[in-house]
């Protein structure tokens, strides 16, 4: 039975199949595309017409082997230049999980795309070539994953076949990376020796590396525990939309629709609404399929309260004794994503934080971070494309904010250029007053 058929069986039996989003990283030629191709192929998620198309193009270009990179490099320009420019999304499933892969480009000039892919990832795979060991990009990618708080990191030491499956080579790289990761506060690190080309330790344990006692990569991806990555403690429900039907059949209905950012909401719970500070109790938590006993991330629900209070989009439902900061002075790490104009002190922008829109002025730039050496340059006066720095912002209205390290949803924001409407920066709140 194919894995997809097994996946179907799992669904049919009501066995829950959950969702894991992961991003891939690594420098050019470390074997990312080969690995993705291998995962798709071995889980029967690659279709014959896709493979035939890739083979035909590969042959026409005179490639010596079928270039699996063409599977993910879907744009004309990417194929012509032979590089990955933008994130591509790929899907596969096994009986246990559905996977969404964000295949992110490795070059430094595409740091913003790596940040984009990492922002929603539960896990990141970083590839290194066993012959070359850690390179600048391996460290940079590890740093970006830690900055974006990707909860699980997997270092894949690839091309083990080219180093005679040497335990010594593997351990040297693993030790060096583990030492580096310790400085970054990476919550969960796994290191796997693989050969993406030959399939060693991808879906099953390799006979070529009996000294390796850990699981094959897919086994790890299927079982890594992600349920507790969610914050189930701090109740945060950003109000997205107020449902108030204008109809003769449904009268006097008023519900606050949104997606639970964190915590568990139940009927009867005492809640506080920010920024007003009014309190009430949850009368019901509803979905289109009827009321539910509780709501938790990532559910999209509608919350109804016992009291009529004035609530609109951008407000936040939390608990009286556990609330986010209500802050207009924000300290954040910002990754700048605009090639046309740098972030400058004094610059004014729009920002979007949860479901709340505000304007902000950059009050200060404490330092710019060299993402290779982690050196802080305090003399910096601006942030250019792909640069990261610590910034102080003043907003027009208060944000209802948590530290990003505690809450990826209520701690992250985007910066929008008011003239071009483009998304020009990603912010992660580091401190709230």
């Amino acid at each position, binding site marked *: 039975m194919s894995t997809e058929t097994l996946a*179907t069986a799992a669904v049919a039996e009501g066995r829950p199949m959950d969702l894991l989003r992961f991003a891939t990283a690594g420098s050019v030629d470390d074997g990312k595309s080969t690995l993705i191709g291998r995962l798709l192929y071995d889980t029967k998620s690659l279709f014959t017409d896709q493979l035939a198309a890739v083979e035909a193009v590969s042959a026409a270009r005179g490639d010596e082997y079928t270039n699996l990179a063409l599977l993910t490099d879907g744009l004309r320009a990417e194929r012509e230049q032979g590089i990955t420019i*933008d994130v591509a999304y790929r*899907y596969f499933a096994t009986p246990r999980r559905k996977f969404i892969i964000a295949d992110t480009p490795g070059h430094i000039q595409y740091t913003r795309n790596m940040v984009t892919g990492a922002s929603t990832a539960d896990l990141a795979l970083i590839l290194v070539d066993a012959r070359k060991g850690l390179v600048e990009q391996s460290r940079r990618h590890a740093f970006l994953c830690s900055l974006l708080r990707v909860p699980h990191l997997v270092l894949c030491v690839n091309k083990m076949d080219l180093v005679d499956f040497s335990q010594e080579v593997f351990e040297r790289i693993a030790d060096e990376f583990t030492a580096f990761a310790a400085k970054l506060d990476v919550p969960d690190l796994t290191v796997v020796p693989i050969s993406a080309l030959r399939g060693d330790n991808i879906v099953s344990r390799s006979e070529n590396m009996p000294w390796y006692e850990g699981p094959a990569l897919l086994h790890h991806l299927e079982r890594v525990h992600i349920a507790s990555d969610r914050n189930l403690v701090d109740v945060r429900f950003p109000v997205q939309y107020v449902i108030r039907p204008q109809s003769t059949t449904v009268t006097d209905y008023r519900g606050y629709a949104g997606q639970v950012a964190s915590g568990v909401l139940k009927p009867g719970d005492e809640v506080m609404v920010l920024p007003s500070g009014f309190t009430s109790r949850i009368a019901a938590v509803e979905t289109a399929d009827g009321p539910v006993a509780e709501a938790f991330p990532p559910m999209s629900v509608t919350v109804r309260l016992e009291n009529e209070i004035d609530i609109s989009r951008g407000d936040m439902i939390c608990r009286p004794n556990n609330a986010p900061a209500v802050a207009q002075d924000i300290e954040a790490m910002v990754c700048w994503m605009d090639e046309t104009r740098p972030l400058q002190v004094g610059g004014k922008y729009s920002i979007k934080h949860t479901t709340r829109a505000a304007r902000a002025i950059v009050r200060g730039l404490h330092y710019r971070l060299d993402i290779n050496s982690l050196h802080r340059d305090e003399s910096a006066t601006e942030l250019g494309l792909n640069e990261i720095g610590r910034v102080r912002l003043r907003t027009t209205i208060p944000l209802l904010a948590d530290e990003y390290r505690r809450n990826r949803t209520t701690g992250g924001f985007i910066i929008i250029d008011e003239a071009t409407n483009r998304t020009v920066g990603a912010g992660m709140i580091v401190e709230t007053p």
Partner: protein
Amino acid sequence: MTSAAYQVTHLDALEAESIFVMREVVAELERPVLLFSGGKDSIVMLRLAQKAFAPGHIPFPVMHVDTGHNFPEVLDYRDRRVAELGLQLVVASVPEALASGLVREPADGTRNRIQTPVLLEAVEKHRFNALFGGARRDEEKARAKERMFSFRDEFGQWDPKNQRPELWALYNGRHHPGESIRVFPLSNWTELDVWHYIARERIELPSIYYAHDREVVERDGMLYAVNEFLPARAGEDRFKARVRYRTVGDASCTAAVRSDADTVEKVIDEVAATRITERGATRGDDRVSEAAMEDRKREGYF
């Protein structure tokens, strides 16, 4: 508190994400419209829209870009759903655009490409600034690069090399007058996810999605139904076959696949076992060139 109790299935997670996206659009953009073709993806999208705004009504109209080459079962379905839900239906008509001279009939008779100007004219006329489309990233390699919120300039064009970064679930729908946003709530769904959802939600589909007997011809290795839009060519052998449709597009260029799957469960088994993508199996229009989809999308196609 044990986290094990707070699990959701992948279908629940996908549904929650799509509902979130639809609510964001309605909250932030004044004039959304949902592209409704009567195909399975747009039908699933419509169900998600119902859920997102319940117990209220779906707060936007639907639009059908009508090539004039329709499967009658699909048109019937469209009209029935629209009436049941009390929706406003906007029809952007290719035959009317041909009559008025906005577009010209292509030599090969397929109207896929000329849909784009017709769509864009309707968008302009009704001043829609957000268009929900049912495209999925697993369908095609150019679509694998799409954002959930995809910016279009005043000519409706997509610039794949210059897309807005899309971080977390913070979607940026800002645009200037005349520009618009295409929104793809099903981005992260696969064909199989869509079918599992249809089964779970007991969603009715046009009958041509299930196995039936039909008179077909074989052309370029695909089976095409013989009908008024697609007459058999000289020398082509017409024969009866048991088929179903995996996608529903223009009746002149959408092929059927051989199938005995006459229930949703059988379709799920079939889709799970198939080794050919749905567009690869059924769309003559994507075979034109390696970048056919990217080129059409750049012009404003979905």
